[in-house]
């Protein structure tokens, strides 16, 4: 099922490089994501995923290369600039304030006001609208975030990133440390982001999550592109091989050993 017309990417990077002293963290990276597409970004530890994410989020300025956002070449020099462009990032630590309630966290730094004071009524109403749109399972928005489960906290963090009406959402390991049901909940959320027409960049180590929800998989290895795969036309083994950089290593060899056995049984 090959797509004949690829939609124009909302974010595309070409030849992006980043050096830290003697370490070439990124070298000539090509990366793009279209509206309504989920692109998984995978790679081993030290492959440059975090550096690339932080470059897109405006934490690091790239040394070279071109970034085109929504058709216009841009240079993102600060996180707030990235947010203003419409790139929302949900970092792995979620950055929630445990002592504030869900409404307080959703609108943190972006509070609605009414006659000079916080407009709790409007904020609560909009919180419910947003959470309903995401079919989020949060019983009350007036409880401290500390009392929510891991999946619910992830939901709050993702919902907050949507308040600025972004075009691209980056999720850094959203399912790490989540249980089975909660992981499914977050993956459903990712699909709902796609339905909303957002470009989603999903950073994950979990191959089954990637295969379950992504449209394409971009593999980084040692700071370079190591292939982009359409999930429909590839397998976990192929991606793992690209991640580790070899078709014969401990991981793939084991998988290969087991595959014939499964076929026999």
């Amino acid at each position, binding site marked *: 099922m090959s797509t004949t017309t690829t939609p124009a990417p909302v974010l595309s990077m070409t030849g992006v490089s980043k050096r830290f002293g003697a370490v070439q963290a990124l070298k000539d990276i090509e990366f793009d994501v279209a509206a309504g597409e989920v692109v998984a970004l995978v790679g081993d530890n030290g492959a440059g995923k975090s550096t690339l994410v932080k470059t897109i989020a405006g934490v690091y300025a790239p040394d070279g290369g071109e970034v085109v956002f929504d058709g216009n070449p841009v240079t993102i020099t600060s*996180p*707030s600039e990235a*947010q203003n462009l419409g790139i929302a990032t949900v*970092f792995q*630590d*979620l*950055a*929630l*304030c*445990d*002592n*504030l309630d869900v409404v*307080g966290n959703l609108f*943190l*730094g*972006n*509070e609605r*006001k009414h006659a*000079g*004071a*916080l407009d*709790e*009524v*409007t904020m*609560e*109403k909009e919180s*419910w*609208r947003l959470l*309903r749109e995401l079919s989020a*399972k*949060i*019983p*009350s*928005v*007036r*409880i*401290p975030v*500390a*009392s929510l489960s891991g999946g619910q906290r992830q939901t709050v963090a993702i919902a907050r990133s949507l308040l600025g009406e972004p075009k691209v959402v980056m999720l850094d390991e959203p399912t790490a440390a989540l249980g089975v049901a909660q992981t499914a909940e977050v993956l459903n959320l990712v699909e709902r982001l796609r339905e909303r027409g957002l470009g989603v960049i999903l950073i994950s180590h979990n191959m089954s999550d990637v295969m379950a929800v992504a449209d394409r998989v971009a593999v980084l290895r040692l700071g370079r592109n190591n292939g982009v795969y359409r999930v429909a036309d590839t397998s976990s083994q192929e991606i793992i091989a690209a991640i580790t950089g070899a078709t014969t290593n401990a991981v793939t060899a084991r998988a290969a050993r087991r595959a014939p056995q499964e076929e026999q049984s």
Partner: protein
Amino acid sequence: MTTSQTPPPAEPTDVADSVPADLQDERLIASQGVGGWASATWQRIKSGDLGSLPVVIGLVIIWAVFYGLNPAFISSRNLVNLTLQMVPIGTLAIGVVLVLLLGEIDLSIGSMSGLSGAILAVLFVNQGMSIWLAVVIALAAGAVVGLVYGLLFNRFGVPSFVITLAGLLALLGFQLRVLGTDGTVNIPFQSGLVQFASQLFLPEWLAYVVAVAVPVVYLLARLRTDQRRKAAGLSAPALTTVAVRAAIVAVLLLVVVSVLNRDRGLSYMVVLFVALVVVMDLLIRRTTWGRSVLAIGGNVEAARRAGINVKRIYLTVFTLCSTFAALGGIFAAARLASANQSSGGADTNLNAIAAAVIGGTSLFGGRGSAYSALLGILVIFSISNGLALLSVSADIRYIVTGAVLLLAVVIDSLSRRSRAAHGRA
């Protein structure tokens, strides 16, 4: 099959419209009316979300014990004295609540209050300046000191504990220097400020008007909010619940006022102090600034990433804290009609910090309320006042106050554990 004929299933929005948006989750336990409010409150207390309950119970016990030992304790005369005594350090405690909400501390509030008292007395008495100008300069000195703390904190990232410890010593030095060789400066009794702090009381009728006006304003504000909530499709508590709450507040205030009115009455200084507490509470709970303070106290990194100007908040809070300390020093100088080398010394610092903590503000940031300054200072001065009535010496007073502080912190830790167990951490 009749699928083709059946009308489309009722729009889910029909159901949603009839139930307020915040009550649609089936897991929520409905609680309506006054009974529902009472049972919900009881559930909250049981789960360890004690709020100000331990302080209130502690206060009742303390008062009962002192009443048993010496009935003069709850005489109107003594209670009026108590309200006047608590204001200076209570004002310091408001500032302490603010820095504690950020998870920081200011150890120099005692020295700052002493310095501001000294500046006020020297400018007014020795330099012959107008009293109100002297007050403004003393307050400005507090603001400048707080500003310096904030700048040092932001620029060098030195823990506030250390900065303000240095400030404690330096400000004490400034205080001695300002006072010069005299050591003590007496402020004339007939000056407006001293009158304000010790002689000016609300007329009886005005005190009653205040006691009725406050719950009425509360009721009206609640009704307005509830109306907006209903218009927005959210739940609102029943009218009776709100009315009962307002009535409770009204009864409490009327009892307090009638007791105080049997003696001199409600002092303007006390009204100003309580008004400051209420204003700070509103600022903390109802403004973007207050929300930022709580957010930073909860998770600085999250606050920074949310786009909050963290440095500006630190700067304003340190400035406000030192300014409140300066104001407390002015109240203290006005009440005692003098400023001397030991003003703001001894246990001033620790009483102010202990008041904030006893009142229920967490030492770890992000949790607390301006009212804890009022409640905590009431506890501390009830103890010292009661022990003074029993002619107990200072040694016992320190020991008892220390024990109460310890008890408050233990209750705080226990309730935190309980909150965690009940998912309310």
